[in-house]
C-alpha cells in the first residue's frame, strides 16, 4: 500500500515515533502534552531501562548526595496518563525510511508518520593501547554511575581524563565517594573552552584544596594493566604512570548520529537539520546532541530547550523556526559557583573589566565591544550572571553604568536610572 503523505508542517502527524528517551525527549513531551493539537499517538523508544532522568545530576548521584529516584523526571504513570507509549530497554537498530518504519533490537518494526531522532551523545573514548580493559568508563548514564560505584568498591584510586565540565563533575563525584582522584587535562587550564586562565586558576586552587590532583597539559598514551583484564593505571605523554583501578573518560562527546547516517540522512558530525529541525528527509526530525545545525553541535541544555520549543510548536501545526542563540555555562559542582558566556578572549579593540579577590575566591571578567557585553566569566559570586547574560543577548549599551558594571545588576541599574 502506498499512499502519498503530505509533508506539510501545518498538518499534525498522526503517529509520531521518537528514538531516544533522554532529557530532550522528555522536555518535548512535557511541551506537547500541554497542547490540545498534540499528535494523538506518540511512541518513545529508549535503550535505558528507566524513564528519562536528569543527566546533569549524575555527579551528585555518584557522590551519593542524591538517589536515583530524585533525579528521575517522570514515572511510567505519567506516560500512561498522557497517552504516550514508552518502550524502555529497546534499542533501535535501523530506520527504514522507504517503509517509514524503524526496527528495534527484537527485529520488530514500528511504522511512523513522523520520526524524531533524539539519541543524544556518548563519551568520546580514546583508541589507546589497553582501551579494551575493564573499569574504563564514560560518564553519561546511570549505568555509567552504577559501574563507577561498583568499581569504587575495589579501588581507592581513579583517573579522570578531561578537565572540562563533565570531567570535573565526575571527578568531584568520585572524590566525594572517598576515592583519590587525578584529573588529566590536555589544555593549559581547566575548562579552557569556558574559562580564562585567571578563573581556571581559582577553580584549580579550590579543587586542589578539596583534594583533587591535577595534571594539566598532559594526555594519556596508554591504559595499563597488571592482570590483563582490569585497568591498573594510565601512562601519560611525559612518561608518568598514574596508578588507578578506575578510569573515567570525559574528554568530549560524540553525537549518536549513526542511526540517521546509516539510514542515509545527511550530516557531517551529526544529523543535519534545518531551521524547522527537519533532516534531509521531510518526515524525519532530529533534536539535541545528535543533530547539527549550521555546523554547530550541541552539548548544553539551553539551545536544546530552544529546539524543543520549536519542535513542539511544529508538531502541533505551528511554524516557528529555530535559530542559534547564545548560551551561558554553569558548572554543577556544589560549592563552586561559576557562570560564563560569550567570547572567551578579547579581540583587538575590545575592552576588559576585571575584578579579583583571590583569597576569597571571587573573580569577574567582562568583555565589552562598543560598550556592549560580549563575554563574561564569573567565579565565586555568580548571582548577577543571568542579568549580565540578558544584557549581552539584548546587546544593551552599557556605557551609562560602566563605572558600576563590575559590581552587578543592582549597582548598574541604579546608575542607569541616575543617568536617565
Amino acid at each position, binding site marked *: 500500500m502506498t499512499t502519498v503523505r503530505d509533508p506539510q508542517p501545518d498538518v499534525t502527524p498522526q503517529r509520531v515515533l521518537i528514538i531516544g528517551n533522554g532529557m530532550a525527549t522528555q522536555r518535548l513531551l512535557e511541551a506537547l502534552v500541554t497542547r490540545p493539537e498534540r499528535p494523538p499517538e506518540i511512541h518513545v523508544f529508549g535503550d535505558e531501562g528507566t524513564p528519562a532522568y536528569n543527566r546533569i*545530576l549524575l555527579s551528585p548521584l555518584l557522590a551519593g548526595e542524591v538517589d536515583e529516584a530524585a533525579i528521575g523526571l517522570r514515572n511510567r504513570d505519567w506516560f500512561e496518563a498522557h497517552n504516550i507509549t514508552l518502550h524502555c530497554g529497546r534499542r533501535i537498530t535501523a530506520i527504514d525510511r522507504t517503509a517509514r518504519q524503524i526496527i528495534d533490537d527484537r527485529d520488530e518494526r514500528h511504522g511512523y508518520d513522523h520520526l524524531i531522532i533524539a539519541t543524544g551523545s556518548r563519551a568520546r573514548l580514546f583508541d589507546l593501547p589497553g582501551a579494551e580493559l575493564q573499569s574504563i568508563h564514560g560518564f553519561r548514564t546511570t549505568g555509567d554511575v552504577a559501574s563507577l560505584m561498583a568499581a569504587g568498591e575495589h579501588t581507592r584510586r581513579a583517573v579522570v581524563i578531561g578537565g572540562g565540565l563533565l570531567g570535573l563533575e565526575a571527578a568531584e563525584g568520585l572524590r566525594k565517594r572517598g576515592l583519590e582522584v587525578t584529573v588529566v587535562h590536555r589544555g593549559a587550564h581547566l575548562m579552557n573552552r569556558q574559562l580564562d586562565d585567571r578563573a581556571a586558576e581559582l577553580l584549580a586552587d579550590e579543587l586542589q584544596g578539596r583534594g583533587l590532583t591535577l595534571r594539566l597539559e598532559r594526555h594519556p598514551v596508554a591504559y595499563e594493566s597488571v592482570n590483563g583484564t582490569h585497568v591498573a593505571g594510565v601512562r601519560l605523554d611525559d612518561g608518568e604512570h598514574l596508578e588507578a583501578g578506575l578510569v573515567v573518560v570525559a574528554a568530549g562527546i560524540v553525537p549518536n548520529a549513526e542511526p540517521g547516517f546509516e539510514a542515509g540522512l545527511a550530516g557531517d558530525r551529526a544529523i543535519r537539520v534545518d531551521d524547522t529541525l527537519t533532516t534531509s528527509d521531510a518526515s524525519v526530525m532530529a533534536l539535541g546532541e545528535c543533530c547539527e545545525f549550521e555546523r554547530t553541535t550541541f552539548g548544553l541544555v539551553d539551545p536544546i530547550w530552544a529546539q524543543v520549543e520549536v519542535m513542539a510548536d511544529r508538531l502541533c501545526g505551528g511554524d516557528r523556526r529555530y535559530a542559534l542563540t547564545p548560551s551561558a555555562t554553569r558548572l554543577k559542582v556544589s560549592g563552586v559557583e561559576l557562570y560564563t558566556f560569550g567570547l572567551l578572549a578579547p579581540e583587538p579593540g575590545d575592552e576588559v573589566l576585571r*575584578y579579583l579577590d*583571590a583569597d576569597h575566591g571571587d573573580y569577574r571578567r567582562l568583555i565589552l565591544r562598543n560598550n556592549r557585553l560580549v563575554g563574561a566569566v564569573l567565579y565565586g*559570586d555568580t548571582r548577577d550572571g543571568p542579568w549580565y547574560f540578558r544584557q549581552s543577548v539584548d546587546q544593551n549599551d552599557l556605557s551609562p553604568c560602566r*563605572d558600576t558594571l563590575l559590581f552587578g545588576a*543592582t549597582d548598574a541599574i541604579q546608575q542607569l536610572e541616575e543617568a536617565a
Partner: protein
Amino acid sequence: METNTTCPYCGVGCGVVAQHDAGRGDTLAGVTGDKTHPANEGRLCVKGSALAQTLGHEGRLTHPRIDGVTVSWETALSAVASRLGSIRAQHGGGAIAGYLSGQLLTEDYYIANKFFKGFVGTPHVDTNSRLCMASAVAGYKRAFGADAVPCCYEDLETAELVVLTGSNLAWNHPVLYQRLRAAKSRNPLMRIVVIDPRVTDTCELADLFLQIAPGSDIALFNGLLSYMAGKGRLDRDFIEHHTEGFDDALAAAQQEVPDIATAAERCGVDAERLETFYYWFATQLHVVTLYSQGINQSSGGTDRVNAIINAHLAGGSIGLPGAGPFSITGQPNAMGGREVGGLANQLAAHMDYHTPGALDRVTRFWTTPNLVPALPDGPGHKALALVEAIERGEVQALWIMATNPLVSLPDANRVRAAIQKCPLVIVSDCVARNDTLAYADIVLPASGWAEKDGTVTNSERRISRQRGILPPPGEARHDWWIIREVARHMGFGEAFDYQGVHEIFDEHARLSGFENDPQATPDTGYRLFDISGLAGMDRARYDALAPIQWPVNADAPRGTARLFERARFMTPNGRARLIAVASSPAIQQPDGEARLVLNTGRIRDQWHTMTRTARAPRLMHHRSEPFIEVHPEDARHASVQNGQIARLHNTLGEYLGRVRVTTAQRRGELFIPIHWNDQFAHQARASALIAAVCDPLSGQPESKQGRVALSPITAQWEACLLLGHDARAPLGESDWWARIPLTHCQRFQMMGEKTPDWMTWCERALGQVPTLWSEDHGRRHFRAACLHKGRVVWWLAVAPVGTLNAMLGDVGWLDDCFALEALESPQRRRLLAGRAASGEDTGATVCSCHQVGEKTIHRAIADGCNSVEALGETLACGTECGSCIPELKQLIAAQHARRDEATEQVSV
C-alpha cells in the same frame, strides 16, 4: 553626671552642659546647650554640639619633649628655666617673647602676662587676638578711651535695625544668628542689612544686601555720616553734650563722600539700595552695627571701626537698649586676654604703659616681700613686628601657647623661616602634631577643653566658668600650672604662689579694682574694667560662679549689661570722640600677574587650624577639602573648571584648592578658607598668600585682601584613598593631597600628573599588594583594597581627573567597614563597589541557571508556591537544567514540615 561649662569656639561664649560618665576619663558622653546660660539659652551650633566627638586621647600631646626626646616634667621645666634664664642674662628680658592665644583661659592669660612682663621683664607679649580684633580694640579706645564693648546680645534682639558688616554671622557666630532670626520673626518691623563683598549664608536673613567692593567700608560709613548731616538726621543734643571731634569727622566724610552718588560709585552698589540703608539708619535710634573680621582685618581696620562708631555717635545710637557699635570677637576668650592686658601694647587690667601711674601701680601690686617686678617701660612688638625682631635676632626665645602661628600668621612661609632661625622655641599645646610643633625645641603638653579650669569672657563682656571635667591625659598640665612651675624654677616662686586657679582669678579681680575709683577720671586711676565685686571668692564660690557681665563692683554688684548708659566715656573729659577718617586703599592691590583680589575667612564647621574640629568627622562633611570660590567669568578666564584643583600663587607662596565656581563672588575676587594647613592638605595655607602688612594703629594684618594669580594645575589622575589609623600615609606619592579624617579611618584625596602602574604603586606606596582589585583599563579606573586577617587596611579608587566621584559609592559605609574586626563575605564582596548591597538578601543560590536564592524561594513557598512547577512558574527556578529540583523539593517539604509542626504546637 552633668557639668555646666562653656563652649571653646567662637566669641559668643555659649553655655554648654557636659554629660560625663565617672568611669570614663577620656571623653564626654555628650554635650548639649545650657538653657540657663544667657548667651545661648540652650541653643548650640553644629560645632558646639559635636564637642564630645572632638575629645579622646588619640592625637593628644601627653609628654614633655626636648629636641624630640621625651623627658620628665622636672627636666623640661629646668630646661625651660635655664635656657630662658641664660638668654635673659646674656641679652636681657627683651630677648624673650611670648605669643599667647584667645584659646587660653583668663587665669592662664593673667599669669602669663604677669610672668613675661612682670618678671622676665619683656614687653614682647602678643597674642593671636592681634589677627582677630586688634582694630576693634584700637577703634573703641580711640572713640571711648577704653576697650569697652558697649552692647549686649539682647541689644540685637531689641534693635529696630541691625547692620551686619564684615560679618558672616550665620557661619561664624551661629547662635547669635539664631537669636537674631528668632527676634526678627517676633518683630516683623525689625530690619536687617547685610554688607559684604560676598553673598554669604547670612544674606538669607537680610532685608537689604549691599555687595560692596572690598575696602569701601569707610566710604560707605562716611557717606552715611554725610547723608545724616544732609538730611538733618543728627542727634545734635548728644553730639554737643557727649562727644568731641564731630566737625572734623563730618568734614572728612563730606570731603570724601559728599553725596549718595559718590558713595554708590565708591562702593560699587546701586544708589537706591544704598539710600535705603542710609535712610533706615538715619531714621532709627535703635540701631546695632555688628562687625567682625571683615572690618578688622585690614590695613585701615581701625579707621573702619571709627567710621562705624562715628555714625552711631552722630545719631546718638549708643548706650541705649538695641543700639551701639558691636564688635563680635572670633575667639572664646579674646575678651579675657584684653582684660588682663595680654597684648603687646597693653600693660595689665585695662592699663596701658602710657596710662598715668599705671607702671607704678602694677609694680606695687605685683611686689612681694622679696621680689619686685621689673616691668618694661613701654609697649612691645605686635605679632608681625615680633616676627621681624626674630628675623633680626633681637628676640632669641619664643614661647608659644595654645596657638598655631605657623599657619595663622600672614606671609606664613616667611614666619616659618624666622621661627626656624630662632634659637629657642617653646610650644605649649594639647595636640601631638601641628605645623608649629614641628619647629619647637621644647614641647610642653597642655590640657585641653573639658580639662582646663577657669574663666572666659564672651563678646558681651560676660565672664563664665569653663570647668575642668576630665583629667588631662598622660602628663599634660594646665597652662597656668606650667607657667607657675617655670616661674618657680626661675626664682619667681614667691610671686606665683598660687594653690589653685581660683587664687589667680582672685588676684586678677583685685588688680582690676586696685586703686580703681569710679569717682576719679581715667587719668587718675579710673578703669572701666573692674571686677572687684568678684574678688575674695573661695574655691566653692568660684566654682559656683554664674555668668556675669563686667563691670562687677560695689556700684554694680550684679554686673552690667550695657555700657555708657549715662554717656560718660573713658576719655579724660568723659566725651566720646568722633574720628576724622578717610578711605585708604588696601596695601595689597592687584598687580601684574596677581590680578585677582583674595579674600580669606572661616567656614561654618571648622575652627582655626582644625586641630580640634577635624576630630569630629561630621564637621568634615560641609567642606572637606581646601577650596577656592571664584566667579564664573574669572574661572573661564583662568581656564579652571568647577570641581578641579587649581593653583593660586603670588610672590609669597602658593595655595592649592578645589574650585567652586559661584556667582556669590564678585568678578575679580576670590575667597579661600583659613583653616587648612600642612596636617590636612598639600599647600593649603591661606596665610602663605597674604603679605605681612598691617593697620598702623592696631597692628592687625590685612588678611581680607591679598592679591593672587589663578591657574589650573595639570593632573592626570585623581584618587580617593581610605587608610586605617595605623597605616602610613603615602603623601609623597602624589602631587596634591588633602586629608579628611573619618570616624574609623582617614580619607585622602590625591592627585598626580604621572600615571603609575597601580598594582606596583600600591606595593610601593602602601606597602602591600591589593587583596582585591578591579580595573577598567579603557577608562583608566582602578580600585583596590587590602585586608589583613579579614580587616580592612586600606581602600583605593583611582580615575582620570574629573571622573572619580562616580566611582566612590558610600564613603560612610566604607568608613564603617574599617571598624569591623573581619568583613563578612557579603560585605567583602561589596567593598570595591563602595556601598552596601541595596537589594534584598536572596540567600545562598539554589537555582544557578536563573540565580534564584534560597531566601527568595522560601518567601515564594510561604506565599503559596507548593510545587516545583509553581516555583518555576513564579521564579523560573528549576526550569532550565532542572538540577536544583531535588533541592526545591526539599525546601518545599521542609517548609511544610515546619508549618505542620507549628500547627501541632498550636493544637496542643
